[in-house]
């Protein structure tokens, strides 16, 4: 199927299961089209492996258009590869040179254990959301859209935080494997809107407690997460989460 002219050497992390010890395995790829996406190149490789009777490489993917947050490869030392503002599925082979060696590893963090090969278990993020990343509403008819006036500036800011797709690139690239950018985005998207206010201080405490319980590291403000985030989530969200956390712990009289 491939009709290109790129020759590449891939070094891919292979690991049988969560318990097994993994290692990098070399694969020579030839006639790769520069117009292929990175994942399509992996599809080609997997087809070749299947034809040879070998076990294909397991990797996460779903929408392949940069909105689901499933793909998760650590490519040449960076999450989602060398380009900014995109996920691995949006990365194309034209971003590499003919003859390149490309090292592909899974997200590495204690809180993201490897399931197999390049797929890691990111349910820690789900548990952080479940701890408080929601609003409680009464059932019934939807409210009129303009019933609650929200300033444009604030709505935009909340929306920017809501752009987080939960891929985990922030954790993967952080030298401390900290989940603060993710957690702060999920807190910020609700903290800036009127619907998020009733549970605002409860939410920040519960979600931060869950984040800590999952075994993520502590943030040291290196800013790597913001630089590598495919959705450009800002460090401002972490500062907002910190402020809300202090308000909850030192100002509010409610205990969580």
């Amino acid at each position, binding site marked *: 199927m491939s009709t290109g002219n790129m020759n590449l050497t891939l*070094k891919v*992390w292979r690991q049988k299961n969560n318990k097994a010890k993994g290692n*990098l395995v070399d694969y020579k790829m030839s006639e790769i089209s520069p117009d292929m996406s990175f994942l399509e190149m992996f599809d080609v490789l997997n087809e070749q492996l299947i034809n040879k009777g070998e076990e294909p490489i397991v990797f996460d993917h779903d929408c392949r258009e940069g909105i689901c947050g499933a793909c998760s490869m*650590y490519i*040449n*030392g*960076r999450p989602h590869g*060398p380009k900014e503002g995109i996920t691995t599925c949006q990365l194309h082979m034209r971003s590499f040179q003919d003859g390149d060696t490309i*090292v592909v*590893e899974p997200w*590495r*963090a*204690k*809180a993201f254990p490897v399931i197999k090969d390049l797929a890691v278990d990111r349910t820690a993020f789900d548990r952080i959301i479940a701890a408080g990343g929601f609003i409680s509403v009464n059932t019934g008819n939807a409210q009129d859209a303009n019933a609650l006036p929200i300033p444009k500036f604030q709505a935009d800011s909340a929306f920017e935080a809501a752009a987080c797709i939960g891929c985990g690139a922030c954790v993967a*690239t952080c*030298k*401390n*494997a*900290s989940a*603060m950018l993710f957690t702060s985005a999920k807190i910020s998207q609700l903290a800036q809107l009127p619907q998020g206010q009733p549970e605002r201080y409860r939410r920040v*405490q519960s979600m*931060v*407690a869950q*984040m*800590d319980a999952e*075994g*993520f*590291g*502590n*943030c*040291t*403000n*290196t*800013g*790597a997460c913001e*630089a*590598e985030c495919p959705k450009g989530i800002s*460090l*401002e969200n*972490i*500062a*907002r*989460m*910190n*402020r809300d*956390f*202090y308000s909850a*712990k*030192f100002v509010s*009289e*409610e*205990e*969580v």
Partner: protein
Amino acid sequence: MASFGNAFSSSIGKKLIMGITGLFLILFLIVHCFINALIFVNDGGLTFNIGAHFMATNWLIRASEVILMVGLLLHIIQGLRLTFQNQAARPEKYAVYDGKANSKWYSRSMGLLGTLLLIFLIVHLSNFWVVSRFTGIPTEDANGHEDLFAVMKETFQNVWLVVLYVLAMGSLLYHLLHGFASAFQTLGWNHKKYTPLIKAIGVWYSIIIAVVFAAMPIAMYAGFIN
């Protein structure tokens, strides 16, 4: 009764302790640097010794010194704990990790820079603080003040100590370059109107403090100051 709960043991609380103690140490460095810069008056240390005498005898300063020591210890202990905890959060390291693509090397090396500063501090405190507070300064100057200037002069005749001090100020420069703005971010002070200013002040503060401190042992060793 309501309590603060896990306010200080949570990941954000631990950052808060680093940020507050860090800012306190940043304030201390301004005072320390100003008093020490009095050696550049170049009057045989008379002015400097007045400053040193005031710092050693004023009760408010002495009380602050206790807070300073507690803050310093907290900053060191918490910093070391955080460094080890954060290393444990990634048990299996990456084969290839391109840190320079997304962050500054000194932002990623605060534990190392801090450890170098800790080693320096042990030497530094035994050079001066232990002498001025405990074992006693042997001579007096023309004003009858303890001659800390003479102790300084003698210490910086040792070329190895001069090298150590200058290298340590290099570590301090990079530690502050990250630490200054980072402390404000941790306190939640990230604001489109203030953050650019905070970052600019942080850079200038770090450079001025490190350069002025490093100039002292060099000037004394070279004999520019008598």
